[in-house]
């Protein structure tokens, strides 16, 4: 694939979830780690929207945080536009690189400082990266507010005066204030009502077209992802199990987990789409199953699946697919 913008190479992230030292010594327990992200490799192409989907505990938000550098990788590397960013702290990274990647968070009620006026919130990155001074700052803040569909006078108001959707617009304006061209959006609409969600998704698409932005979109909502993504990576317990162009993933899901996720989607348009029964739940990531993490819920699992971790080959990490034991599921799209 050409023009790789962000290269994520074998990134892992572990968290120490051990019990307190004394308890461990008394019960002679070893240290315990939770592998939230397990050797994930992905490349983000310039101008695309790469979506990462998964259920709670799949590691998608941790991966997002590692990509933008809010968390360090335990292993592996992240390259942004050719620059290695994963081994440096934010301070060490050149501001010219750092300002170009920004994040939009899930909860706009928590991500905006309630004591700051909106103008100050949006101006902060402008000051931090010294992108404008004096009256130019106010002008730039006004431009950004208009860009996201708000009024320049809204700069004088406080976050609590805005609805959830408007706050998410403010969060997007702040992300764009540093003239970023790479946004990682972690569940940007899951705290919003559907009619407002549509407004924000449309806004994100418009901004992408106008400003040539590249997105990594983290979501648990397959329909949102379908609407936004160029390519989709499906995560299960820290690993990417399938990676495919959006239309292919929905037309011919190959990994049994992807097939199960699609089967679980409610049929909003009441098309009478064939559905298979979903069973089980995602296991605890502290003690994930051996081999392929999905084997405990997989109808096609055999001895090899229980012992050997499948590699991501040709966009899918599944022994049964590699061995030709299962064919891609055909989802018949109704007219």
């Amino acid at each position, binding site marked *: 694939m050409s023009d790789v913008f962000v290269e994520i190479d074998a990134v892992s992230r572990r968290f120490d979830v051990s019990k307190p030292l004394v308890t461990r010594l008394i019960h002679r327990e070893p240290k315990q780690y939770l592998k939230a992200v397990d050797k994930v490799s992905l490349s983000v192409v310039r101008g695309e929207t790469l979506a990462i989907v998964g259920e709670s505990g799949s590691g998608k938000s941790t991966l997002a945080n590692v990509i933008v550098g809010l968390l360090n990788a335990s292993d592996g590397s992240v390259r942004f536009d050719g620059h290695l960013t994963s081994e440096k702290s934010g301070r060490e990274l050149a501001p010219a690189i750092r300002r170009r990647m920004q994040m939009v968070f899930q909860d706009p009620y928590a991500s905006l400082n309630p004591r700051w006026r909106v103008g100050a919130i949006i101006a902060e990155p402008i000051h931090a990266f010294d992108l404008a001074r004096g009256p130019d700052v106010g002008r730039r803040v006004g431009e950004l507010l208009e860009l996201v569909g708000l009024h320049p006078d809204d700069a004088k108001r406080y976050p609590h005066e805005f609805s959830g959707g408007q706050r998410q617009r403010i969060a997007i304006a702040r992300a764009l204030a540093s003239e970023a061209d790479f946004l990682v959006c972690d569940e940007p609409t899951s705290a919003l009502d559907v009619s407002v969600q549509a407004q924000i998704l449309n806004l994100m698409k418009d901004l992408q077209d106008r400003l040539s932005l590249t997105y990594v979109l983290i979501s648990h909502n397959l329909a949102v992802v379908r*609407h936004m993504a160029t390519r989709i990576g499906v995560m299960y317990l820290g690993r990417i199990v399938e990676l495919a162009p959006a239309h292919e993933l929905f037309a011919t899901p190959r990994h049994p987990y992807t097939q199960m996720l699609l089967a679980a989607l409610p049929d909003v348009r009441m098309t009478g789409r064939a559905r298979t029964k979903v069973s089980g739940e995602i296991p605890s990531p502290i003690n994930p199953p051996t081999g392929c993490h999905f084997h405990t819920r997989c109808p096609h699992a055999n001895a090899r699946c229980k012992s050997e971790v499948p590699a991501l080959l040709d966009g899918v990490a599944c022994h049964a697919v590699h061995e030709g034991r299962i064919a891609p599921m055909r989802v018949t799209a109704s007219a």
Partner: protein
Amino acid sequence: MAETARPLLEVRDLTVEIPGDAHVYKPVDGVSFSVAAGEILGLVGESGAGKSVTGSAIIGLLQPPGRIGGGEVILAGERIDQLAPRQMRRLRGKRIGLIAQDPLTSLDPLMRVGEQLIETITTHLPLSRNEARRKALGLLEEVGIPDPERRIDAYPHEFSGGMRQRVVIALALCADPELVIADEPTTALDVSVAAQVVELIKRLSRERGMSVILITHDMGVIAEATDRVAVLYAGRIAEIGPVRDVVLTPRHPYAQGLMSAIPDVEDTRERLVQIPGTMPRLAAMPTGCAFHPRCTHAMPICAQVQPPLVDGVACHLYSPAPQAAIAGAA
């Protein structure tokens, strides 16, 4: 579903009031609907539509200072909106069960699951502890908890999110209620688990002939589970009808907007249809039809006269009289 004989539950012109400093706010303002025996009725709407408050009003769990300001709630022919708290407590749990959104807060974390079930059963039914325990085991099995003999003595934290929600459902079924109110039962769950819980609620309603009021913001859940659905907006019913009609051919402009705003896996539109603006706040309720500032079809009358719910839809576009009135005025 055809309404046979007398409906199990009838809600007539229900209004909920919250007294404020200057105004009395009405999060629910004149809502009427009925639920037939064995029927699943959906209440759908966005935040602030009044769907949860409607549910709380029916079972007498309004958060003070909220109170029922008018209207009637009739369960199997008896008014229950004016019952004394003591009588209401006896009815709640026994004849109307409740399934709340968050299984973590509706279970006591310090009490074994079995104890919670037995306590609820013996409160409502004249059974001995042993009989109650047998019934609890039966309920756990009915809601799909594997190995109930072993799991009955576990604590809530030992269950996964989906299993915990199943326990909450079993708790609602303890006294074999005629009606269950499920308030966002799948919202805290992952998609694959949510699908299982929706299936379970449908199965229980079918097998027990139990009526369900399913409150949710998720049109997908509505389409999957309900027989009829009421779309709420700003405390009023915008549209009510059989689920296929409302989902596939919505008539109210808000219901239409809501349906087309939902991204769907089977649609490849470039842009979603968006409804401009947001749900009005209680303190700033528009005059006339509450939806008119966001409505692309708004007419002069919409800002003046609240449209009545006629033939399942509350919109001036469908009532001939006001249109004649406009024509007459013009």
